[in-house]
């Protein structure tokens, strides 16, 4: 927990516009980054990230100041994205390829692999996708993901395993990696 965060939150609760701006600027990169990774669409991600901040400020009085602020905000972001993904899943629509997600500027192989992985993530359950993105792309520990998704760590590990298998299957089908004799356990 950062004392600076506590002071900033108290100023926000007094409706200090500068404090609100400061808090948004402090966490907007992570929140928007997570939304872009999870939703795969920049415009949708911006909308959801804005909603995340509105909800963060709406429930700021419920934040336990003895605990760090960052995971609390990220949990709200994960939950908003999960709700959005679930809603989007109910109304299937033709979506463009994830071309607007910034690809790696590295080698072509990496960029292509990234695109394939993200395409594969589009086809798995939203929970699997969130777990994958939080773990591999955001570097969050299993405990954080379990807390954010309100599931036991064991369940998250199972989801991760299934998600990796789904990604691997797609990569094999697409010829990105050669057919292997064994599958992941």
């Amino acid at each position: 927990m950062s004392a600076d965060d506590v002071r900033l939150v108290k100023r926000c609760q007094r409706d200090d516009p500068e404090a609100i701006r400061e808090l948004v600027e402090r966490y907007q990169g992570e929140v928007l980054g997570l939304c872009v990774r999870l939703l795969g669409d920049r415009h949708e991600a911006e909308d959801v990230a804005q909603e995340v901040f509105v909800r963060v400020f709406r429930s700021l009085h419920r934040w336990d100041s003895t605990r760090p602020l960052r995971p609390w905000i990220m949990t709200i972001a994960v939950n908003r994205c999960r709700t959005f993904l679930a809603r989007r899943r109910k109304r299937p629509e033709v979506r463009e390829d994830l071309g607007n997600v910034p690809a790696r500027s590295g080698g072509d192989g990496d960029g292509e692999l990234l695109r394939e992985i993200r395409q594969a993530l589009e086809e798995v359950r939203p929970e699997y996708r969130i777990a994958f993105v939080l773990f591999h792309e955001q570097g969050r520990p299993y405990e954080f993901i379990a807390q954010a998704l309100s599931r036991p760590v064991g369940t998250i590990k199972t989801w991760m395993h299934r998600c990796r298998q789904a990604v691997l299957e797609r990569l094999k089908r697409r010829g990105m990696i050669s057919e292997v004799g064994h599958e992941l356990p």
Partner: protein
Amino acid sequence: MNCHDFARKLETYLDGGSELRPALADHAGQCPSCREQLAWADRLLALPFAEPVTIHPEWTEQVVQAVLRDRRLRRRRRWAMTLAAAACLLLALLAQPLLRGTGQPQTEPGPLVAENQPSAPKPEPPPPPLPDLTLGSALRFGPTSLEATRNFASEAARQASSLTAAAPPIRPAPRRVDPVPDPMADLGRNASEGLEPVVRSTRRAFDAWLDLLPMPTEEKPGL
């Protein structure tokens, strides 16, 4: 390590167990299939996912404005809810005297034994006029009604206390009270008794008149 162990440990490696890498590499050196899997895992772990997204200042400003707008809206809604609750409470207080019907005529208290006496049916009193329950009338007449009610109540309390002090002690009512005779109950019998001499005289005069009449002669039918 066999291939089954390799697959199990590869999962742990992907979960962050980097210390398993040498052992995995040892087995992968002997098994081409496992080598492919390790290569895939390495690529996955090395992928630069976390590339920062560019954030436009307009978007930040948009978010800040959305937050401020939401806070203003919620504050206004809280005020509106408080005002509505206060208005409801005030309206209930103001409408209370009107709903109790302060404009109804005062009725005299009946005798204490009235409930034991059979009484004639009383005519239905006219319905009291409906009070004007609009907010305007409540606000207009509310203070006056409250003041009048308060004066009436204090005056009634004063009179009650003086009457209580002056009145003789109330004796307990007799256990049984004789019912008051109903004047209409014997009306028919009294009327018939009063008219009986007249009826008798009339009947006698009729009989005398019948006696004065000539008796008709009987005619014998011819053979």
